[in-house]
């Protein structure tokens, strides 16, 4: 018996001729006639500034920083270009490659352009917010006016924030999803982030080094 099966649609014959891909060439002249070109710089509200952001993740509104609603808080560092973990100090690099590899490898494809440090303040709320304390990750466009950033990835669960930029702030939703034993059914979270400075990757490096030390102690507790 499968746990929590998903049912993909059965394959059927599709109407290939009418599908949109085939129209591309046909209306090339329409696009040309309309002066179609790459998107020009958009309104201010659509711009995301790379930087270091203070981030709050809440159940309900994030406006008051009410401890009753705050699920996690921390720092989110968005950079303008991707890098590899090889440029990091050895201890931090080893931590990310050993213990947070699914974010670094499966999500960021070994080319992260963001990192985060989160403190999980509440649990048991049906949210994976802050379950990963520190990680290298990827931020990328989501639809036409938002960005998406993964903050957790395990074999069977994930957490993504979808954020829309507004005047130096990012506001949006946090989405938890899991599967089989990790299935969750909570509501979406609110996410609020405001820029506090230029991208500062060292925040994540220091946090990873601290986590590595704590993990080492936890894996080999002193014998009584």
């Amino acid at each position, binding site marked *: 018996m499968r746990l929590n099966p998903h*049912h*993909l649609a059965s394959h*059927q014959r599709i109407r290939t001729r009418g599908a949109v891909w085939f129209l*591309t060439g046909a209306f090339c002249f329409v696009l040309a006639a309309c002066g179609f070109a790459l998107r020009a710089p958009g309104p201010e509200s659509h711009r995301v500034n790379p930087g270091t952001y203070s981030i709050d993740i809440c159940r309900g509104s994030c406006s008051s920083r009410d401890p009753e609603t705050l699920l996690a808080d921390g720092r989110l560092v*968005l950079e303008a270009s991707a890098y590899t973990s090889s440029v990091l100090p050895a201890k931090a690099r080893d931590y990310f490659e050993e213990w947070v590899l699914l974010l670094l490898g499966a999500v960021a494809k070994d080319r992260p352009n963001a990192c985060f440090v989160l403190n999980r303040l509440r649990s048991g709320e049906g949210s994976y917010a802050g*379950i990963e304390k520190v990680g290298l990750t990827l931020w990328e*466009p989501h639809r*036409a006016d938002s960005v998406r950033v993964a903050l957790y990835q395990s074999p069977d669960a994930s957490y993504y924030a979808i954020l829309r930029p507004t005047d130096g702030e990012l506001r949006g939703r946090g989405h938890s999803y899991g599967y089989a034993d990790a299935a969750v059914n909570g509501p979406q979270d609110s996410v609020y982030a405001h820029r506090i400075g230029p991208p500062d990757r060292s925040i994540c490096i220091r946090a990873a080094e601290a986590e590595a030390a704590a993990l080492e102690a936890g894996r080999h507790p002193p014998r009584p």
Partner: protein
Amino acid sequence: MVSSLKGSRAVDGQSYKYQYGVRAVRFPQSELDPGGSTTLYRLVSYGGGGEIVHRASCLIPNTDAARARIARMFRASPPTRGGLRGKEADGGVQVQSVPLEGVDVTTCMYGGEPPHCNYAPPWLGDSDVQCPANDPSCSAGGGGDPDGWSWGSGGGDGSEPPPPDDGTGRPSCEREASGWCKTEAVDARELQQITERINAMQDSLPECAEAKRYAQELLTQGPDRFQVWNGYDVYPEPKSPTGFAQRLGYNSSDAKGRILIFDSYWLFRERTVVAHEALHNYLHRINSPLLGDANETRVREWARKCA
């Protein structure tokens, strides 16, 4: 150089919204980078309702000529080197321009300017792509369709198509009729890896020792208590912002009990994946009341200490 352009397109009248395909694109020698470097080209095209109509990606030569060629294919102006189209003097980045190395293009399928794209003109009927006679890449490769695309399996019903692949360079898994990746018995190498990972689990913490013991019980029950799938598993997940999620391992069960199932690729590359699933099995075996995020949180916390 022939690049494999992977894409997805919206389809009508189906229980799934997207279909995935591949098309070969040939770049002549004159358009190749002398140093052999390539860059990732990604395109997202929106319809009038803000919906993604199609998405495509491929590795192309890192030259202006190659970028211009593929931009012509998609009826877009050639993007600039580095992919930071829209980047401004103060370092701001348009959200449509992924801050990754590569070339990212956002277009409107039917004209307009994202996010304000036009709807499909009603007078546009079925039509094939019209390729310029002097552009061999426009019709190069591909199988069944006149525009060179070979369309494969249907996708899900999420709001966006999935990423064309998972970045590992391997194909999607082969799926059962139910939509799940076909799993198979572990081979000797996979069983050895699982066995080594289980036997290497720490004994110093009680939870780790117990999870290890239960996992070793599975080993003694036989190799059929473990399965793998090959190829990446990006599955429809309505709650995911992309409409899809990637699965890397999970617990399943049959009449004999639990089965731990892994993406074979990550089984060999990720240190905690076996411990993670072994810990889910442990919580199940002790009838833990922990569910959902509480279950996953505990497993995540322990997995790093146990692995």
